[in-house]
């Protein structure tokens, strides 16, 4: 198996699915000649042409709404939102339309679309190029929300998303695009949407994360392991559907739980995970369900000192692990 970057996984998934099924098309801002601002669609324009790799007008609601319409008439769109921060204008099309086509028509109309967006911080993107938006969408029935953390998952989950008969929100952490490398199978594989993955076995406490934070949690787990604290690190991979069984199984084993995300604390998706554990895993618990998240300020500032102050980091996470282990 070849070692590749996460963005290569994304690109390969798009290329293979477009080659496999001519109904698949890509639309978004700058996805054409430029190949996307992160080069996720690089080469596709030359290979598949403008009609299937379309530079849209600068309008996110248009991107999603047109994708929905094209799906109604037989195409399978993969819409790129240039930054997750700019997905908000499409909120209505995603929540009121895409998520409900099947339900409101009692199954007569469906919405097999994928919406990709780079999210997350640590790239001095300032208030509007760093945000986490998963909590907004993981709350919406009718949507699937996928957050890959490895190159293999990025490719395998994106291929599953494109073949999924329902709308899938596919969020790629922009800092992991080139930072995170890993092996990608040569085979034409699919990674199922749903199951979480235990990335590190541990007996003292369970740590749940996704995206960049998963890797910070693994670093932190390494650090505290040297002190004899064995942390089980679970990569949730998809927030909706949420793999409750894996979460509860892990808490049953370790009796202590912690959620880490770079989204703001209050109302972040970590709250849902805590709530599930507090309701369905209460008997297992031997300590408070801890959340390590960004502070409740509107996204991370551009200047380095404050960007660093905003983002959870391996040290902060390791401290929280130590405290919870001691509890």
């Amino acid at each position, binding site marked *: 198996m070849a070692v590749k970057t996460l963005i290569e996984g994304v690109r390969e998934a798009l290329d293979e699915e477009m080659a496999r099924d001519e109904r698949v098309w890509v639309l978004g801002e700058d996805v054409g000649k430029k190949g996307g601002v992160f080069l996720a669609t690089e080469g596709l324009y030359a290979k598949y042409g403008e009609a299937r790799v379309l530079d849209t007008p600068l309008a996110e609601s248009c991107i999603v709404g*047109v994708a929905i*319409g094209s799906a109604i008439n037989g195409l399978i769109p993969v819409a790129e939102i240039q930054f997750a921060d700019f997905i908000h*204008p499409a909120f*209505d099309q995603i929540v009121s339309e895409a998520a*409900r086509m*099947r339900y*409101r028509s009692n199954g*007569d109309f469906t919405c097999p679309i994928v919406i990709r967006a780079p999210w997350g911080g640590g790239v001095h993107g300032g208030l509007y190029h760093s945000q986490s938006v998963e909590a907004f969408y993981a709350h919406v029935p009718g949507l699937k929300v996928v957050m890959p953390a490895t190159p293999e998952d990025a490719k395998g989950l994106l291929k599953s998303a494109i073949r999924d008969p329902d709308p899938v929100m596919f969020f790629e952490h922009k800092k992991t695009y080139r930072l995170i490398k890993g092996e990608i199978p040569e085979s034409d594989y699919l990674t199922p949407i749903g199951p979480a993955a235990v990335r590190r076995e541990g007996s003292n406490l369970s740590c749940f994360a996704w995206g960049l934070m998963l890797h910070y949690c693994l670093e932190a787990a390494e650090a505290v392991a040297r002190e004899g604290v064995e942390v089980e690190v679970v990569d949730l991979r998809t927030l909706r559907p949420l793999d409750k069984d894996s979460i509860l199984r892990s808490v049953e084993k370790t009796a202590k739980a912690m959620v880490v995300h770079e989204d703001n604390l209050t109302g972040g998706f970590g709250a849902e995970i805590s709530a599930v554990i507090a309701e369905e895993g209460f008997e297992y618990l031997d300590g408070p369900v801890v959340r390590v998240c960004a502070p409740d300020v509107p996204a991370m500032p551009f200047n380095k000192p404050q960007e660093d102050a905003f983002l959870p980091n391996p040290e902060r996470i390791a401290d929280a692990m130590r405290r919870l282990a001691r509890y």
Partner: protein
Amino acid sequence: MATAKETRHDALGLDPERLLTMYRQMVTARAIDRRMWVLNRQGKAPFVISGQGHEAAQVGAAAALRPGVDWLVPYYRDLAFCIALGMTPLDFMLSVFARKDDPNSSARQMPSHFGLKRARIVTSSSPVATQILHAAGIAYASKVRGLDEVAVTCIGEGGTSKGDWHEGLNFAGVHKLPFICIVQDNDYAISVPHRLQMGVDSVAKRATGYGMFGETVDGGDVLEMYEAMRRAVERARGGEGSTLICAKVARFTSHSSDDDQRRYRPQEELEALLRRDPIERFRAYLAGEGLLGDEEDERIQQEATTDVDAAVKTAEAAEPPDPATILERVFAEHG
């Protein structure tokens, strides 16, 4: 004979049979519409919203389409449009009574949230203007797939104020899509008058700014509407581009059963409009052309009433949805 002057419908290539079919569609839609208000007052229909006054624009437009081939992405006043494309009085009454077999949504949605797969009437929601982008997407797929399917979408003049309306027309204009947007301009958005809605008399004047064709039509004249629509459809199929039609119509009823237009609308204004009922106008035309006698008209009215009576009877007796099915069809996996 060469001497006899050509009639308007001859010029449009509409034979008497087509004309009477169109008339029948308008009459049926009106009969259903009147009846649902009665049901509402009887407490049998918690919510109704009306298309009375819009029938000529809708039936005239539908007459230029191929039902089941071209697409309608409708809005809530399109009852007559849907009837003309093949929705039956029973299909509709099942939604008014919120019955399980309602083909629009199995009573998950309010009545007049149209959707009928077999007729290519796309499921519609309540948020105004979202449908414009769906029509643009359908038209884009039609173009890239090399189909000759036309996507038609309807909206009120108030809906043109929304961002989605603009984004949809802009996209259609960029790609010269087989896309037609019919704005049914009845001068009010619930209570908000035209002057507070837009700074222009006809929204069709925006067409050039999108690189598409624009037409302002008397939406009370079914033949004028048909003519404009036929031109638009030919352009769409011929790859010449999209069209924005502003059909001036009248809203005869309050916005919906939750509204009382006397609070904000001058009575005289309404009475003046009612004197120009589009169905009356079409009847007068047909009579004038000797195509519709009183008995025939009587029969058509009678048939419509009978159909509606039957539909109401059947729908009222039909099953409501099973509460247990509330969890189904969120995703393909469950149902």
